[in-house]
């Protein structure tokens, strides 16, 4: 997959990008984050529902960024990039999962019920 350095446009990863995709990416992610901010500011739901909703919105934002801004998919060109990203999944599970576990135990022990 080696491409001459003097012809950047022929590079398969560069040719994947398009103004439309970037624009959609910015609009979609900003909208999702804006909705989250609004929900939190207005205390629109109960605490648990709010947490669940913004977690889902955060997940959707991540997917939107990966698809529209990083152009990740399962095509031949991007297969390795997508696979490499998968290496981050255990880290995500470790950091978010262990943090949730720690704080759940902590709250049970030290907070007023």
């Amino acid at each position, binding site marked *: 997959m080696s491409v001459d*350095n003097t012809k950047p446009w022929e590079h398969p990863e560069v040719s994947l990008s398009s103004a439309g995709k970037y624009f959609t990416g910015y609009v979609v992610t900003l909208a999702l984050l804006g909705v989250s901010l609004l929900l939190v500011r207005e205390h629109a739901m109960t*605490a648990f529902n709010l947490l669940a909703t913004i977690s889902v919105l955060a997940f959707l934002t991540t997917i939107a960024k990966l698809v529209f801004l990083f152009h990740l998919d399962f095509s031949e060109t991007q297969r390795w990039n997508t696979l490499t990203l998968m290496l*981050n999944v255990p*880290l995500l599970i*470790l*950091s978010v999962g*262990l*943090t949730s*576990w*720690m*704080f759940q*135990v*902590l709250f*049970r*022990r*030290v907070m007023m019920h």
Partner: protein
Amino acid sequence: MTEVQQHWDPIFGRLTLSQVPYDNLIVCFAFFFAATLGLVILGALTYYRKWGYFWREWLTTIDHKRIGIMYAVVGTVMLFRGFVDAIMMRTQQVMAAGPASPGYLGAEHGYLPPYHYDQIYGSHGTIMLIFAATPLLAGFMNFLVPLQIGARDMAFPYINALAFWLTAVGAALTMLSLFVGDFSHAGWVGLAPLTELPYSPDVGVDYWSWAIQIGSVGTTLGAVNIITTIIKMRAPGMTWMRLPLFTWTSLTTNVIGLTAFPVLGVAIGLLSLDRYFDTHFYTTGMGGNFMLYTDLFWIWGHPEVYFIILPSWGIMSEIIPTFSQKKLFGYPVMVAATLSIGCISWTVWLHHFFTMGAGPIVNGFYSVATMLVAIPTGVKVFDWALTMVRGRVTFPTPMLWAVSAIFMQIIGGWTGMMLAIPAINYMTHNGVFVIAHFHCVVMVTVFAVIGGTTFWFPKVFGFTLHETSGKWVFWLLVGGTFIVFTAMFILGLTGMPRRLAYVPYASWWPILAIEELGVFVDIAALGAFIYQMWVSIRDRELNKAGRDPWGTSRSLEWMTHSPVPAYNFAVIPHVNARDEWAWRRDYRLHHVMPNEFKDIELPVNTPVPMFIGICSAAFGFAMIWRIWWLAIVSLVAMIAIVCLRSFGGSTGTTIPADEVRRLERLAARPSMRSRPETAIPEGVVVLGGGDAR
């Protein structure tokens, strides 16, 4: 937007003349020292008419070797600053022990008022870890990785320069806090909620947070660059299991850097939102939780420990085989140990706050995970030891440093295992026992870095360092370190808390005095180091180094000339063995010079990364002082510069084959000039061709 209670105006934000602490004698002294040194450097550049050279060869360079040297210079300057902080802290404690201790310069006890002392320990930690150790190791990785894998430069030379400038801006903002405003008094970790605006209304925390924020963007970019370089730019034949161990540790460390530094960015970003936009992420009540900050900080903080230690182990793994005249014992196990430490680094962070109250099962999990680190670390210690067994071991300065780093590693590791036990941790938490422990660990980095500097100095500058004074530096620094930290361990076991501006018990004074004595020995080591540099530079013509000044070195970087030419290798080598240079020496192929040369394409210098650095410095300064117009202007300027650069100009230059031949003939010693490629046995490829596997 949060309103600050103090003075603010739209032009200068919070900045007023009264923020310059000209009434503080210590700061004035520091200012005159820095100003004099700066004037001497600027004067010398003008007098010797070196501004053009300085601009062309350094400020605008995107050559990985020069960027590596610049990283090392920034790291060394910051190391000295951090060392001065350490001297000041030790001196304050020895002067302020017991209620009868007198006070000077406006302090109740000792010579530093608590608010000033607090800023000094905050800046000592921040500087030593983020702006001294990290840039020094980044310098090593920048310089060595492309050479060790047989590449001409980094994968992204322009981003490499940008990463350097952003790191330098972080360091510069920290230094600036000395003379304009103040620095964080909340420790290098930024203890929440002390860092919140009501408890730290001054700009100190903002200096700390923006310096780290901007610097860590640089480190993240650098990590992307080094990972890509190692994966994509290896010379033909440089398979994974032939990579030098330093390159393996660089890869692991930068994977850690790439995954961990964004967490720091988020942790400090949320703090900035609290301070600037009135959110409540880290305040108790209002839905916030200050332990969330501690959690996020250490999710980065513990991997950062391995970010600092892994390349140091890589340096030791290069030095020890060279001076044992043997290949590294257990190479595959060393690689596995390096990678597994990288993985475990992500599962241990709660051991920094066992006392949070998370309960026995959570603490037990992190305790066991932390102890797991001892397995690969122990493997490494045994591998280094077994490399020396039955080797022809010699002890020039680099080897002395490497071997003493093993001992330091054992002391730091053992006390680390003690602290991994929550019961012990509860007793020593926030005590100087912890400080002594992690200083032993970071001293591994210091020893390895000084050893590595002595080892690769001739490769970088073309002449060896003065050996006798180098040994003086070694014995003085090791001796001083031993005195300081043995005394500190004793104080820790006695129960002394960390971060004390005033030590309540006069009975601790004798041990504090021993620590101070150790610091004096360390100062003598610094003196010896300056002497060593002076003698070495004075006698540089006498100590010129060839390609392999040690005669027993093993990896690819020793194949090229010292100092290394801009193109690294005239012809990209073909790698045949794990320790290619040792392999060539064994098969008498080390004198082989290429007969044919080709044009070499290299990236062209550009001032753009420096301009972006200047803009980001202005942006950081503006955010710290809340000068909104300057923040907007500098941010827009940064984006404009990036856009403008994408439009144009040539990014590459070519060195013609004839020029390469001429430079190679000049650099080669006479004995080598007449050794043509024909001396190579049939079936062996030593130069170029094919893809890296």
